[in-house]
C-alpha cells in the first residue's frame, strides 16, 4: 500500500487531496504516473505532464526513483513560496 498526496492547483484540478493504492508493490514514479493517468481525462492530462513534480517520503525525486510499499508519494505544481 502507498499513500499519494496532491497539493496546490493540482489538488484542485484533480479534486483530490489524497488517495491510497492498496495493490502497489514496487515501481518508479514514471510507472505510478501511468497508473494514475488511467483514472480519467483530467488525470491523464495533469499527472503525466512535466508540471507535476514528485516527492517520495517528503524528498523531491526523479522519474526513475523507486517507490516501495509503505511510502508516501506526493505530486504538486512547481513551488511558489518565499
Amino acid at each position: 500500500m502507498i499513500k499519494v498526496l496532491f497539493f496546490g492547483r493540482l489538488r484542485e484540478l484533480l479534486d483530490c487531496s489524497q488517495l491510497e493504492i492498496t495493490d502497489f508493490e514496487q515501481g518508479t514514479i514514471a510507472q505510478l504516473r501511468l497508473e494514475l493517468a488511467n483514472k480519467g481525462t483530467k488525470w491523464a492530462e495533469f499527472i503525466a505532464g512535466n508540471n507535476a513534480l514528485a516527492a517520495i517520503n517528503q524528498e523531491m525525486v526523479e522519474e526513475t526513483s523507486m517507490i516501495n510499499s509503505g511510502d508516501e508519494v506526493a505530486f504538486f505544481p512547481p513551488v511558489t513560496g518565499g
Partner: protein
Amino acid sequence: MISVQEADFNLNTQYQMLRAKDNTDGAIVTFIGLVRDFNQGHDVTGLFLEHYPAMTAKSLEKISDRAKERFKVNQLDIIHRVGQLALGDQIVYVGVSSPHREEAFACAQFVMDYLKKEAPFWKKETRKKQQQDVWIETNQKDKEALKKWQ
C-alpha cells in the same frame, strides 16, 4: 533556527537572536519577503499560502544545511508563514550572521533561491470576488536563479 508558522514574526526579535555576542560577527544580512500586488487592478486582497506540512520544515532544513556547508556563517535562521495573508504582510524571513559580508549576502540569497525552487509552498492570490482566486505561477527568473550556484 527554522520555523513554519501561521503567526507573524518580528524582525527585531529575530535580529536580537542573531546578535548573539559572537565577536567574530562582522555582518548581518536579513531578507524579508512581503505580500505584494502581483496583478494590479484585480481587487487583490492577499495570498493564501498552502504547504505540504510533513515536508516543509524538512525541506528548509536541507536547504539550511547545504547553505551552512557552503558559506562560512555563524547563524542562519529561516521563518516561512502559511495560511491567509493580507497585502503587505510578511511571508518569509532569512537572517544570517557571518564574519564577512560577502558570505552573509551569498548565504541569504542561496537560501531564498533554493527555497523558491524546492520548498513545498504554493501561493494563491485571493481577490474580493472569491471565485476569482488565482494560483501564482512560477516565474522564469526563479527557475534560472539556481544557475549561479552550480
